[in-house]
């Protein structure tokens, strides 16, 4: 594997929300092909990191930089970051009333294609792609014609996020607590889908509170994020230690 330029470099990132510092000097490097897990107590700033990566408004970057393939992301709009290959599976996916999954993904895919100078996908190709990916996630095809996330159960929403990821084929995926709210079978389906999409070109950041999902999706590195910083990094054994002892002893030694 090449290691010259990491896929993602986060350098001394400081972020405030409404004047209150949330991320306080966060550093992280992710290579293409890797899976990094980020664990950490509630309110530590994990979702904030995800939102800042995706370019959400309302987060003030007071210092530091985020580089994707060596290029700073900070001036890019959320859709440009999406076109550049960033995908965020939301912790709380929203409903879009009256807009079917097909309409939604047609708009998304065609925007991605337009950014690459490609023509819109025709309906037959679109449907073939959507059906193939729905199968991967063991989703009933009827879900394609339902409104995005409307009336979906918590678990269905998470599965739908991974389905969208499979369709959009991103290079850097951030899963924000995709495992919470999933029953055991759904967790297996989602993990299998993620594993099927692990390639040397794609990297994953898996934000989670539980070791459970990391047994399915084996991470290369595990980080602990606390109080706006990465305070510990290690192998999967770190997650095991966390599961057994909780955060306190680990944070005390940091």
């Amino acid at each position, binding site marked *: 594997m090449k290691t010259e330029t990491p896929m993602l470099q986060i350098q001394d990132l400081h972020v405030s929300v409404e004047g209150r510092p949330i991320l306080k000097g966060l550093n992280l490097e992710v290579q293409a092909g890797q899976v990094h897990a980020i664990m950490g107590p509630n309110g530590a700033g994990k979702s904030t990191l995800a939102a800042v990566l995706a370019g959400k408004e309302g987060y003030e970057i007071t210092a530091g930089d985020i580089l994707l393939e060596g290029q700073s992301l900070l001036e890019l709009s959320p859709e440009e970051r999406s076109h550049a290959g960033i995908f965020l599976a939301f912790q709380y996916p929203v409903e879009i009333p009256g807009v079917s999954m097909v309409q939604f993904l047609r708009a*998304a895919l065609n925007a991605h294609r337009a950014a690459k100078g490609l023509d819109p996908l025709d309906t037959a190709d679109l449907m073939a792609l959507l059906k193939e990916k729905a199968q991967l996630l063991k989703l009933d095809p009827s879900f394609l014609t339902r409104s995005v996330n409307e009336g979906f159960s918590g678990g269905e929403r998470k599965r739908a996020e991974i389905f969208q990821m499979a369709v959009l084929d991103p290079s850097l995926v951030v899963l924000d607590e995709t495992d919470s709210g999933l029953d055991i079978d759904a967790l297996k389906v989602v993990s299998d889908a993620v594993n099927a999409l692990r390639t040397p070109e794609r990297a994953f950041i898996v934000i989670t509170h539980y070791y459970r999902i990391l047994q399915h999706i084996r991470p290369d590195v595990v980080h602990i994020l606390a109080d706006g910083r990465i305070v510990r990094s290690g192998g999967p054994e770190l997650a095991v230690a966390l599961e057994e002892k909780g955060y306190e002893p680990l944070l005390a030694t940091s």
Partner: protein
Amino acid sequence: MQPTQDEALTRHLTTEYEWGFESELDQEYAPKGLNEAIIEFIWAKKKEPPFMLDFRMRAYRAWKDMREPHWLNAHYDPIDYQDAYYYAAPKSLTENRPKSLEEVDPEIRRIFDRLGIPLHEQEILAGVAVDAVLDSVSVATTYKERLAKMGIIFCPMSEALENYPDLVKKYLGTVVPYNDNFFAALNSAVFSDGSFVYVPKGVRCPLELSTYFRINARKTGQFERTLIIADEGAYVSYLEGCTAPKRSEHQLHAAVVELVALSGSYIKYSTVQNWYPGDKEGRGGVFNFVTKRGIAHQNAKISWTQVETGSAITWKYPSVILKGDNSIGEFYSVAVTNNRQQADTGTKMVHIGKNTRSRIVSKGISAGRSDNTYRGLVQVLPSAENARNFSQCDSLLIGDTCGAHTFPYVEVKNPSAIVEHEATTSKIGEDILFYCNQRGIPMQEAVELIINGYCQEVLAHLPLEFAVEARKLLAISLEGSVG
């Protein structure tokens, strides 16, 4: 840096009106102003049967004693009714009425070509028959013969008065009386043309019937009159579309539509209204003051669907009088206002028969400095045992300089009635926009998508070709409103 949402929304809402071109046609006018002599002039010009002179005269005299209404939630200066023409017709259409499309003045055909309204039957959208009306004169009606074989009459009102005077006489003014309101009275006095439809007993009209209205002449009010009769057990779906050139002065459009749904029949009436809305400062634009009403006899059903994106002021309440037992009335509406547009629209459902049902779904979208009002009345008379109504009125605000208002009036005189009303007011959520953006969908498109989704329940009631058109129109009329 990225534009803020409100900037993007606002920009998204400021595209130019695409249909604003003007055409030079040789027009014949009545003398300016309105008086009994003008009424006679119109009547004579149109070679109408004698009962029409009586109808028009009574309407004119009633109108003279009425006052221009200003109770709507919109502001406009009183109109000078003497400073307008009440009859304008392209000479080429009236002097030697063209017998086939080939004889229609090429300049007129070009107007409809530019508007994308095909007048050649072979070019027409499959399954849609079109009557094209320019400045209140019918240009061409397609598929007439095919319809005639089934006994269906679809023709300009002026032709109906010539060929089926008894049918017109029997129904004209029975749903909207000549003295119903100020603008309906004015229309009854001076209307020039419009569409007439009759579907015989038990016949299901196989085509969508469609009228396309275009204002071209200056300082001319547009007064169409539409009358649709579905005989017992008949079915018809009728569509209406409209545009006008950009003008710096206001143009008055005061139409009357009457629907008669006899026992067991079903009339579905759809409108995509895109009259010129005026410029950003509120100069020019059409005053759309329209009276639309239907009467549903036993087991009959009337369904109104409207997508209102144009006009400087819209003032209309397509209504259903549920006269017969078990009759059904529906109203599905999307009204979009932007810049300085003002819309005061809604419906009236009058329950008279037993077991009558009505359903109202209204979606108001306001942006810019516009005002959007839903005004509805659900009336249950003592005779209406077991009446049911459900109303849903949703308002969506884009930016914070626009207004949304809801006035749902309910009058129940029979205790067995069940009347339900739900209303919501919302803004396009930042979280939804961000969700779309994260998936790669740019702001403009995200707003279009969300608004289309918001209106889905109404758009689903439009015939397919129209729904596509309406979606485009929604996108265009909201362009520049998003940031």
